[in-house]
């Protein structure tokens, strides 16, 4: 018999008799009067930055300036300007030089400051992790209260990869002192569009 059968048989013999799944009551969980305010407070407490903007005009200006600065900037937000599609087939050794990345996220979560990003919004799975600085754009109406609502709105099986990202990469492995910028992005700024 294969390991698979041995394991599955052992489990089937040893597992207790069936008990039902609980019902997750949506109205038993917290909601926030001002979800944006909550999102901002939490994200800033974990090292992220949040900026509320009326429309993309301002951000476009910043983006153009970033591009012109000569730094390696990758754009994955269609509304900002031309997409840098070439990143899809780039190798890690080249992407390591990416200074800044602009991506669009599907939603933000008020309770923990995370945003959900699908693979298609990243252009390349590695991009949001390997870049030095991460700029994320979300719409204010897409901030949901908790993870329960977040999972209702997204479909984790729709694409090959997706992630909740909450602020910049960090570690507290040396005597519990918080250091921002362990392996991933050194900064994460979320622009929330009204």
């Amino acid at each position: 018999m294969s390991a698979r059968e041995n394991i599955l048989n052992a489990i089937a013999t040893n597992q207790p008799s069936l008990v039902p799944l609980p019902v997750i009551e949506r109205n038993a969980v917290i909601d926030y009067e001002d979800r944006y305010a909550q999102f901002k407070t939490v994200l800033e407490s974990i090292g992220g930055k949040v900026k509320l903007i009326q429309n993309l005009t301002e951000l476009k200006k910043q983006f153009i300036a970033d591009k012109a600065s000569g730094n390696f900037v990758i754009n994955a937000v269609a509304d900002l300007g031309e997409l840098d599609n070439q990143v899809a087939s780039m190798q890690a050794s080249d992407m390591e030089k990416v200074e800044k990345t602009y991506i669009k996220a599907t939603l933000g979560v008020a309770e923990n400051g995370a945003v959900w990003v699908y693979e298609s919004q990243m252009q390349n799975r590695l991009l949001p992790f390997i870049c030095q600085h991460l700029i994320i754009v979300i719409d204010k109406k897409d901030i949901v209260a908790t993870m329960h609502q977040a999972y209702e709105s997204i479909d984790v099986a729709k694409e090959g990869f997706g992630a909740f990202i909450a602020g910049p990469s960090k570690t507290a492995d040396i005597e519990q002192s918080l250091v921002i910028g362990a392996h991933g992005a050194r900064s994460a700024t979320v622009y929330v569009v009204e």
Partner: protein
Amino acid sequence: MKTTHSKLAEKFIADEPRTDWHDETLWFVREKRDKAAHGLPEWEQLREWASQIKNHTLSNLSDYLKEFEEKAKANGIIVHWAENGAEHNKIIHGIIQRHKIQKIVKSKSMLTEECHLNEYLQQYNIEVVDTDLGERIVQFRKEPPSHIVLPAIHLKKEDVSATFHEHLGTEKGNNDPQYLTEAARQHLRDKFVQSELAITGVNFAVAETGGFVVCTNEGNADMGAHTAAIHIACMGFEKIIPKAEHLGVFLRLLARSATGQPITTYSSHFQKPRPGQEMHIVIVDNGRSKQLSREDFRNSLKCIRCAACFNTCPVYRRSGGHSYHTAVAGPIGSILNPNLDMKANADLPFASTLCGSCTNVCPVKINIHEQLWKWRQVIAAEGYTDATKKIGMNAMAFLFSKPSLYRFAGKWGRWMMRIFPFVTNNKLNIWYKQREMPESPKESFRDWYLKNGKINRN
């Protein structure tokens, strides 16, 4: 019984300031957990849901695993099954050999620690670079992690500085965590960029979708998995949950319980390999199905490895993770390890005060302290307790069954301790070791109660 835990703990607490520091550091993490938990009015409800979801999952485990396998395969993931650690290691070695791979990075996975993967591969001159900062630190020092979430929590920044000076050429005596982390970032970025194969753990695997979730704060799992041509994810079979919507419950609990963060920085959902990539999942038993058969202990398989029970445990905080001499230390490790090897780990269920603090913080409501108490009975029945403990226990059983003799002995003992303190404050009394004996009261609680208890009640 081997008294390994107390022997190793003795070494740890010999350095008193360091013991205090360790204790305080972990208590600080425990307090952060409390603050995060109190921030959600539905916290207890979440724990209840998590516990019930896990109960249900265990009761339908074989079907969920089959469903997961089928979906994962349909997603293009290659699924392997390993009955024990040796098989797990062999499967991984096989993949490495087939592709003639040299450069391997690994993100924190307690399962690979449990299976001793690094040591196994070393025999074949294959080196795996641990990429979690804490793991890298202990790897340089040739030590195992001392905590499942904070692997280097037993080290001070001076220790890290000396280690990095030796291995990474950092400035001698520079203890700045920012500087040291930056050095590790540069060193590990090189490893990531060159890596051909990445090994990660699995925090949750979803039966409904055939995908899995990996949580890190540093982003090391992602840096490895998205760079390498091959990604191997290793999971104990208890990591399975029924549906994606249940991730909502567990991701809300995990980081809050672990470090007090609202969520880990990265919660990455792997569904399919990227084009051109090979993705493997190794599903491991290694004693888990046996634990499932032990009615009193099967609850331990609900564990999501948050380490809240470590951070709150008065014994763990004062004895250090290495005193548990196993990959998973702390209260939950003391339940899981006797299942793997009762003889070698018979000491662990005794490394607890049974105060119940672990049970109170556990996000999936495992009755940790009750299980520890039950293990003690099993271990005693199987004859794995040591002679001195047995004699003591028998004497106590005799005494406790004879109330008047017990009272007489108590009176005599208190008198002795007052008049001749050296009778107890000496090396022969193991209770005196590394602790002060309390001052002996004049009267027993019973006498005090007979005098005062009734009066106060009226």
